[in-house]
């Protein structure tokens, strides 16, 4: 701005529309300067990725592993076969693996990729667990499961509240990324496994078996995801939840009369993949 203009004290006449237009122009100028900042941030992120690959010792292997997770055809949910899901899933591992570096998960947010696809998958699994425990509690209250011991009722309500909190945590990550929260469930697992299995549940043991399968698959999905998620916040979140799911599983094993800690190392068997339908 020139000194001449600074010296001009005469009030100017301007319409509100003109002022808005000028403000919009200034906003555009501000945004025009942002690409340089974004470039710097992207460089920083790329550097972080390079370091991680370097530290892993084999970047190609990491990428391959990631693809294996993202396109893997894990079709077993705990002890429950998920064969039906293979055909119901809209994305096949063989047809998509060559098309893109990451599989997109469909959710209310549209197509998500990378870490966010895993986050949405996690939210969908947690929502499914909340719903399944809710259905189990409702069935118990309706007397459909016979006599339900107080300890089992307490387990179910507490585990359900945990899964509600887990879903909220994942959805918070999505919101931070300006993506809508996932309010639906993992439909692939629900229609392929949970619904048919739940229809056969007639007692506490049946419900505990189904819950155990869900807890184990959630824990497996998180363990697998920990090796693939790039963002530290995502790793932290998965790491803080996976042990809790396994604690649920330990008590369920105990309830079922099975040894509560059957493995020395947690497994990734049955881990779900972002190609699952979420909605």
């Amino acid at each position, binding site marked *: 701005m020139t000194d001449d203009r600074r010296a001009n004290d005469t009030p100017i*006449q301007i319409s509100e529309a003109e002022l808005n237009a000028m403000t919009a122009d200034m906003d555009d100028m501000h945004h025009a300067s942002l690409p340089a900042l974004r470039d710097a941030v992207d460089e920083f992120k790329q550097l972080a990725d390079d370091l991680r690959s370097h*530290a892993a010792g084999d970047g190609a292997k990491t990428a391959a592993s990631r693809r294996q997770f993202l396109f893997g055809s894990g079709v077993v949910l705990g002890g429950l076969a998920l064969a039906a899901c293979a055909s119901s899933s809209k994305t096949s591992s063989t047809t998509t693996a060559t098309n893109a570096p990451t599989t997109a998960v469909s959710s209310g947010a549209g197509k998500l990729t990378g870490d966010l696809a895993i986050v949405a998958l996690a939210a969908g699994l947690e929502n499914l667990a909340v719903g399944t425990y809710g259905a189990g509690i409702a069935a118990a209250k309706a007397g459909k499961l016979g006599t339900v*011991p107080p300890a089992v009722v307490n387990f179910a309500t507490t585990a359900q509240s945990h899964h509600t909190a887990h879903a909220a945590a994942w959805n918070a990550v999505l919101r931070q990324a300006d993506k809508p929260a996932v309010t639906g469930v993992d439909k692939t697992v629900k229609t392929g496994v949970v619904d048919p299995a739940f229809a056969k549940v007639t007692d506490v043991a049946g419900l505990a078996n189904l819950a155990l399968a869900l807890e184990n698959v959630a824990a497996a999905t998180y363990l697998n995801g*920990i090796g693939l998620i790039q963002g530290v916040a995502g790793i932290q979140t998965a*790491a803080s939840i996976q042990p809790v799911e396994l604690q649920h599983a330990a008590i369920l094993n105990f309830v079922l009369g099975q040894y*509560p800690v059957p493995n020395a190392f947690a497994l990734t068997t049955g881990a779900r993949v972002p190609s699952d339908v979420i909605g």
Partner: protein
Amino acid sequence: MSIDQRTLAERVEESKDLHSDSMRDTHAALDEMVDVGHERIAGGVDPDEGHQLASETSRLLSGGVMGGGALAAAGFGAALVALVGSPAFASQTTDVQMLQTSAAIENLAVATYQVALTLPFIGGASALPVVKTFVTTTMNQHADHAKAFNAACITLGGKAQNNPDPTLLAVVNKAKPTLNGPAPVVALAIELETGAAETYVAYTSALSNLNARKVTASIMGIEAQHVAVLLAVQALIAAGHPDLITLPPPLAQLPAAAGSVGFPNAFYKTDMARPATEGVLK
């Protein structure tokens, strides 16, 4: 509408200055961090600095699941600091430290359960069969964990840690004279298992090496399961019902609290995580 042109001009000028200042500061901060990253690629990281980074990461982890939320709440500057504390900027030296400390924790757990099995009410004739089986199996699982941590450590060029964590060993030695019944043994085991689980939860996002992270992550949940079982056993002992500690359990007789006492938190904490250097080889 009428606007004082001088006032408007001054406001516009102030806005431009603010924008320019913030952009210059941001660029400088970014350039500095990129330089730091390049230096770490080229020359590794000073062990003390690495520990500081690990501590920072651990501190960030103590925010628990809402780490992302904390970043958002703390603003952009804090988010960049958190990125520096991310696994990408940890070093193999720091990884070796964490793996050696993890192995040391496991070695201590094995030694402690070995001692417990010599007690008549844990491993002797008066022991509850389920408890004896649990202690024996858990001890073996910890031995497997120690091997896994040491294998991951050796892969990174470090040496195997076959000694117990010295800090925790002092805790165990102090507790030994008080182990006169199942309750104090279970309490001690809960303390050790909780410390192990929380340590591994914290290390999982602090480790830079992918294999080390996977190994650690595959163990943290198992320790958490040990904690869950021990908490349930502790509750039944405290309630005067050690007779209910059977497999399968008498479900109808269990108090309602037994259903949830094993998992007190929706998210695993890290406030009892051990420092990365605590169990390193001297």
